[in-house]
């Protein structure tokens, strides 16, 4: 992630400062559309003033004379011969202004909507760009929902205050003009009218203060309700199997009731806010009437000035109301904006950290030299998970990493693909620290346990957009023992064009894993890292794949994490990992002979089979 992008999303300083930073970000992201919308809003404001004065003018110069049987006056009288024509002309002018207004509204709202959409797209793009640049530790520490909600609801919420933005800024011209005219007219009336500004802002401020904690409480309960629903529906089969519908119903109802109460509290506060805001202008008008009356009695202003002041006051309040809308959405928008900013700031991984290009010939020699391997803890701090690993993978050999769950096997596997880091010591490929190897993916291919399969063609899923000939793809599929499955996907036409569903849902778990293996094999990697990549594959097929890897003697160096004894026994060397340390390394036979922990682990199957046989014998006796 570039430094510029991070700076773009940085918010600092006071609340007000952050507010301006958020708005500034939006205006910078969509300058043209916002400018168009603001200009239309400004012209619209002017026309609104015009409409008001025109109405009075027409009533005075056309309507009243016509009804009283007198000729139309002013401009209207000069341009028409009969009163009938004058009336029609006046009507026509209204229609024309209406059309102009309508066009301005359409342009303002259309451009405004486009601008907001653009800012939303900018937020989403930042999140999308961050996805593959976030450290794996971040992904482990944060649920998938975090990214998904950043992509959807956060991006939306962060743009909410922008909807009334153009209208608000555009109508500022109206406010300034109205305010200036008021000051020229009479300072006391101006002062009275201006009171509406601090009053509206004050009510807004108070409202935010009161509502924010209530709103937060509601949001966290909303998340809890959602979590329970997720969990309960996901475990629907278990709920049914246990006949636990009643328990679940109660569990959900408790939270729903709490959410109802929290939302009712939010609603109770906001239900006085809107009417209070609505009352601001009428209340100020009443104040202006009183002040205006006494100023008129004192001869300081004319009666016409008071009437105008009432009208101007209404205009004064329009942008203020807009500010209220903008500010009202601001607290939640800032929270969402900062959530996106945090993701953007955490995306620190560089796409290509290497610069040394290695020849791509023969199996690779991969070594760990006193490596303390660690990962990001999700807050940007490195944590050592496996200590002091020293091991050598001879070119073309198969090495199995064996250890109980949580021993640190995956961390070692990830380090081989530069996805976790040696915080001390180093990981070396052909005598080069892998940190500086360019296009490491061409040398080391990692296949994780959870297969990455996306909606798209089989070809795209295997090549990931890199250039491979179809024959090469088919060869890889065959070596991954998934060729027949793919052939069955498409009965006519090219099976490589067959579409896989989202997350590969039209394949079984084992088939998805095999597609992921084909993806690694098509790259003819020099080192292949299989992190429990065959867990859902049928044991027989697993053997077939692994055996084929070394059949021609030209296969890659393989680092394998597996639980099945048969797979472990295929390895030339076995490394036993326990509690974040390498405890022993050697052949399977050597380890069985000297390493008790290893013996316990891998002979567990055998022991179990024997024990079961013994039990059966007992029963027969």
């Amino acid at each position: 992630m570039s430094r510029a992008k991070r700076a773009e999303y940085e918010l600092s300083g006071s609340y007000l400062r952050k507010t301006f930073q958020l708005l500034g970000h939006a205006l910078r992201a969509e300058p043209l559309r916002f400018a168009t919308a603001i200009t239309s809003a400004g012209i619209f404001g002017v026309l609104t003033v015009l409409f008001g004065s025109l109405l009075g003018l027409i009533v005075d110069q056309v309507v009243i004379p016509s009804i009283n049987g007198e000729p139309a006056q002013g401009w209207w009288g000069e341009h028409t011969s009969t009163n009938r024509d004058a009336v029609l002309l006046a009507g026509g002018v209204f229609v024309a202004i209406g059309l102009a207004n309508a066009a301005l509204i359409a342009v303002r709202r259309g451009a405004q909507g486009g601008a907001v959409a653009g800012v939303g797209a900018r937020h989403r793009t930042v999140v999308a760009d961050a996805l593959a640049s976030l450290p794996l530790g971040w992904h482990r520490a944060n649920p998938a929902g975090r990214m998904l909600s950043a992509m959807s609801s956060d991006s939306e919420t962060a743009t909410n205050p922008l909807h009334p933005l153009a209208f608000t800024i555009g109508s500022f011209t109206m406010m300034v003009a109205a305010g200036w005219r008021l000051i020229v007219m009479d300072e006391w009336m101006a002062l009275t009218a201006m009171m509406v500004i601090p009053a509206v802002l004050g009510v807004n401020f108070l409202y935010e203060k009161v509502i924010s904690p209530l709103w937060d409480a509601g949001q966290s309960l909303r998340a809890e309700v959602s979590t329970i629903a997720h969990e309960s529906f996901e475990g629907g089969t278990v709920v049914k199997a246990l006949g636990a519908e009643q328990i679940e119903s109660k569990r959900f109802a408790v939270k729903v009731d709490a959410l109802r109460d929290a939302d009712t509290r939010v609603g109770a506060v906001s239900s006085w806010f809107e009417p209070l805001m609505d009352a601001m202008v009428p209340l100020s008008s009443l104040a202006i009437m009183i002040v205006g009356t006494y100023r008129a009695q004192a001869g300081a202003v004319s009666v016409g000035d008071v009437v105008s002041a009432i009208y101007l006051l209404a205009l004064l309040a329009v942008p203020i109301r807009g500010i209220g809308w903008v500010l009202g959405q601001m607290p939640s928008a800032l929270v969402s904006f900062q959530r996106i900013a945090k993701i953007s700031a955490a995306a620190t991984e560089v796409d290509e950290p290497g610069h040394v290009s290695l020849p791509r010939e023969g199996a690779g020699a991969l070594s760990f030299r006193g490596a303390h391997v660690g990962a990001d803890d999700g807050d940007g701090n490195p944590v050592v998970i496996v200590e002091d690993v020293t091991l050598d993978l001879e070119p073309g050999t198969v090495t199995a990493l064996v250890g109980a769950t949580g021993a640190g096997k995956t961390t070692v596997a990830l380090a081989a693909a530069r996805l976790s880091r040696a915080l001390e010591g180093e990981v070396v490929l052909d005598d080069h620290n892998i940190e500086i190897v360019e296009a490491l993916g061409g040398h080391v291919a990692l296949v994780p346990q959870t297969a990455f399969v996306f909606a798209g063609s089989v070809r795209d899923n295997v090549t990931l957009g890199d250039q491979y000939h179809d024959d090469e793809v088919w060869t890889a599929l065959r070596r991954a023992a998934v060729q027949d499955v793919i052939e069955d996907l498409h009965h006519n036409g090219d099976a490589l064009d067959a579409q896989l569903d989202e997350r590969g849902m039209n394949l079984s778990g084992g088939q998805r894993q095999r597609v992921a293996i084909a993806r690694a094999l098509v790259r003819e990697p020099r080192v292949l890292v299989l992190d429990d990549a065959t867990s859902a594959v049928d044991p027989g097929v697993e053997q077939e794949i692994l055996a084929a890897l070394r059949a021609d003697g030209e296969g890659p160096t393989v680092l394998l994490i597996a639980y099945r004894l048969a797979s472990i026994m295929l390895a030339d060397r076995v490394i036993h990992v326990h509690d974040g340390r390498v405890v022993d390394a050697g052949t399977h036979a050597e380890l069985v002979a000297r390493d008790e922990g290893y013996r316990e682990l891998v002979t567990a199957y055998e022991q179990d089979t024997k024990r079961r046989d013994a039990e059966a014998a007992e029963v027969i006796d």
Partner: protein
Amino acid sequence: MSNIELEAEGHADFETKLSIPETFRRGLSISPEIRKGLGVTLFLALLAAIAKATIPYLTQRVTDDGLLAPSGVNATLVTELVVGGLVVVLASMIIEWRVRRRMVIAAEAGLATLRKKAFDNVHRLSVLTQNSEQRGRYVSRVTGDVDTMRDLMQWTGAGMIVAAMESTVVLIVMAVYSWQLALVVVLCYVPLLWVTLKVQPVIRRAYGDIRARMADLLGRTSEQLVGVATIRSYGVQERMRQRLRGEIDDINRAERRASWIASSSFSMTAFGQSFATGAALVAGTALGIRGDLSVGTVAAFSLLVYMFSGPLMWIIEMLAEMQRALVGWQRVIELVDAESTVNEPKHPVELPHGELDVVADGIRLTYDGEDEVLKGISLRLPAGKRLAIVGQTGSGKTSFARLMARFFDPTAGTISLSGVDVRDVRLGELHRRLAVVPQEGFLFDGSILDNLRYARPDEADDVLRSDATAAFDDLGLATWLTGTGHGLDTPVGTRGELLSAGERQLVSIARAYLTDPDVLILDEATSAVDPATEVRISRALERLMKGRTSVVIAHRLSTAERADLVAVMDHGELKEFGPHAELVGAGGIYSRLYDAWVAQTRD
């Protein structure tokens, strides 16, 4: 975590599609709280509307009679009118506050009920309807869709009702002044409203399109989240970003398009305001010339048109919002009304005490409109015996086993336990006597003990605790339980994710053990877990099955080998059935499978 709507509009899961009046009728009958006190609320809203409509009248009196009085400024009258105005403004404010508050309370109560009813019905649906893909949608219905409803009811609903009443009150005032002019104004609005309403479906489709694209984007994102390690290790970050950016740009374009359609529709109503004002002036002047109207009335009309159209414009603007909420409401109602296919028996029969045998007779099963999954399965499993069902993925073995637990019902045929059709047994009783241990041990957030409570909801805490300890002992899991650190109080996390897959399986075995069922349905796990846990699981399962009638969906032949009876299924048919030794010698599918297995493992 926020609510994520993954569901595209128009993507109906159920056949019924409600009309708008039906939605309201059904929705209100599901949530009667919304209707409670609605009459009073509406009356108060009317009062607020009337109060609001008098404010411009007062302004006019102040101007005409107070400031422009023939005898000079009348300060006394102005003061009186201002005080009157103050009372009216404050009164309308307080009344509107009450209206909104009442609506919030009623709406929140109604929505809570709606949420609960929808949630409960999801668990009543058969497992068939509840497949994994749908579940995410159901979550978005009880969360996102209800929240859209809430936004409407809390923020716009009350305002809309007051606005509608304001327009109506003003219209009545207009008609009282001059019915002819009122008619002119209404006629001006009719074509505009007609066009606006015609455009609404287009707008709705445009927004539906955005939602569908949004769902695609989220799908792509979650795919890539799964594949982050792969994406980075192959160095295809930029290409994957491009995929997402493509989707984002599509959404951006769709949003811009929708925004232009919506804005042109809204600008129509703004035009309507000027048009109606102009028309009222022309028509009013014409009527005035004939002597039917006074100057004051004509002048007043321009203000009245403004007052009439303001709230109307606002309502039209909110229509899109309202439709979104209505669609959400419809979706939740659909979920509440979705018919559960597995129902409690009308005339329940009690299962006999003691061991139970299982008999399937001519079982056929067809999922909605798809190929037949089970094509007439009949077999008998004697009480206390163990049956292993083997067959390839798609052979129907899982469906068959699930029928026994009434996860859904067969299309034809019966399954009976010791002669009692499972459909005649109360669901509660059936689940006490017959336990299912699914493949993936699924746990609920809480402690291990909390999860065991699902087996015995009404048990006293200390009894459950000592029984649970004993259960872990019996299953040979005492050491494991001690090793967890906090024993029965060990937290398992959401979906049990703090435990490993194998450990979750252990807890769900203990949970089944505590139920003490007479019949067990087991789905053997396919994923490999670490050997130590694997041993614990198989040992615990053996002990759990001991002396109980058991049906195992077997993925390993070693499992089938240990069963009393083996059923071989293929494409929905029962091909072979009998003891392991017998089938091995029969020269059929099973013996071929067995020979291949032996050849592979024993060389």
